[in-house]
């Protein structure tokens, strides 16, 4: 059952520019707009907001549009510039500050209503609803690494003494970063004990190898990797670095 019988204090926040409207008028509008819950609004605040008491456990945030010409309303050609009032009501109870945040991206619901349609007019019709901002090759790269990792798990799982979840977490933390590099071929293979080596071949005959241990080593800590870059089979750079530092410098290293 829906509960609609609690008395709640509700704060109303102003959002728009309607300073010219006297507080009493505004509260009357607000009060009447909540007739469904027998509003008992009392003007009590300055120009930063109003507060009122309502006798229901209901939160409403309507947008009101007031019109200055009757024919505009009838023709549907509404003049929204007359003024616009938007406000939120926050209920001071156990639900206060609760963020109800499981709604899917509202931008996908275009053109379903009058307001959505109006908003659409300002947007690019071809604009994608989703931002697939990572480079196109990122997904394929990560998938290549993942496939190689799964194959290694089947063949050489005895190399792992750490638990699988731990190894997976470290593998993905490194693989996700390396996948942002635009290589042409790649693989990943387990080294003899609790470590994995990523090998990536680039179109200009450069080969990058990155080793990552799943456990702390005497000379390499958990956040570091060991890398080597080869060009035409000659090593041009090799070092132990923090993975983030390595990623910051790698593009430069690859173009040397």
């Amino acid at each position, binding site marked *: *059952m*829906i*509960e*609609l019988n609690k008395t709640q204090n509700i704060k109303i926040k102003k959002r728009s520019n309607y300073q010219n409207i006297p507080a009493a*008028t505004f509260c*009357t*509008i607000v009060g*009447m*707009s909540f*007739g*469904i819950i027998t509003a008992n609004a009392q003007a009590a605040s300055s120009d930063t907001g109003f507060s009122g008491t309502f006798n229901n*456990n*209901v*939160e*409403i*945030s*309507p947008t*009101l*549009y*007031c*019109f*200055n*010409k009757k024919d505009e309303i009838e023709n549907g050609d509404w003049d929204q510039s007359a003024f616009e009032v938007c406000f939120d009501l926050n209920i001071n109870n156990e*639900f206060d500050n*609760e963020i*109800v945040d*499981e*709604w*899917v991206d509202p931008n*996908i*619901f*275009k*053109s*379903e*209503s*009058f*307001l*959505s*349609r109006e908003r*659409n*007019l300002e*947007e690019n*019709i071809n604009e*994608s*609803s*989703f*931002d*697939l901002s*990572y480079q196109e090759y*990122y*997904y*394929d790269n*990560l*998938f290549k690494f*993942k496939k190689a990792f799964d194959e290694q798990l089947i063949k050489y799982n005895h190399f792992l003494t750490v638990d*699988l*979840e731990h190894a997976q*977490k470290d593998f*993905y933390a490194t693989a*996700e970063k390396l996948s942002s590099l635009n290589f042409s071929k790649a693989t990943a293979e387990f080294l003899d004990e609790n470590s994995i080596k990523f090998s990536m071949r680039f179109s200009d005959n450069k080969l990058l190898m990155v080793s990552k241990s799943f456990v702390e080593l005497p000379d390499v800590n958990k956040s570091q990797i060991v890398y080597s870059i080869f060009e035409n089979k000659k090593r041009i750079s090799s070092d132990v670095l923090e993975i983030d530092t390595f990623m910051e410098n790698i593009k430069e290293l690859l173009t040397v």
Partner: protein
Amino acid sequence: MAINSSEIEINPLSFAYVSIWKKNLTFIPPLDPTFCKSLFGSPQTTTYGFNINGLTIAEPMQATMQNNAVIVNKLGANLVLGYQRFSIYTANLDSLLSVYEKFMAELKKNDSAFVTNLKQAQTGINIEYELEFKKTEKIIDFLTERFSLSVNSPSFISIGVLDVRFQLFEQEKEKNITIHLQPRANMSNALFCSANDHYGISPTESIFTQSQLNTYITRSREKLKSQIIPFLINKV
């Protein structure tokens, strides 16, 4: 303006299931690109990839321009397996259930431990409806009257409601439903209504099975019909 529930035709426009993880995921295994492309049955147009939210598979929206308005001809389905949440959205219930089952089976085949470890903290069943008021000519008049709006300033001769959003808290702990109403585009006697049926504490810790998902969607639709619509037309 007396309106009976029987005068309102309820047409669902879209269905979505959203789950917020108990603990953020540390990684998301990529699925076979061929599977991603064919998830919604439209491999030519479906896009997939990673972004800051996680793995996203989406169909494009199909829209055309008519009389200076953008009209959506086909809603694009989408699925996001994110680090913080999972969501799936389709235009009809059958495809929601079949796509969901297909996706979960592939995920399980890919990494069954990953699926076992998915724990949901909050859940939402989000359904969009078109509510057609058979005997009402102007829905804007209904909204204005229902929400008792009027203007007492000489500067304004009338007022209309274009957007109403309210939240109804239920007896069950941290359970509520958010209703968002707007006049429907191109239909003077219909409302666009989105209902966000929110479970602040998820009914199950494990991600829903297809059958559970169907049950909670059915409950949400029943609630709209038996409780929300009567509330909306003041017939509680």
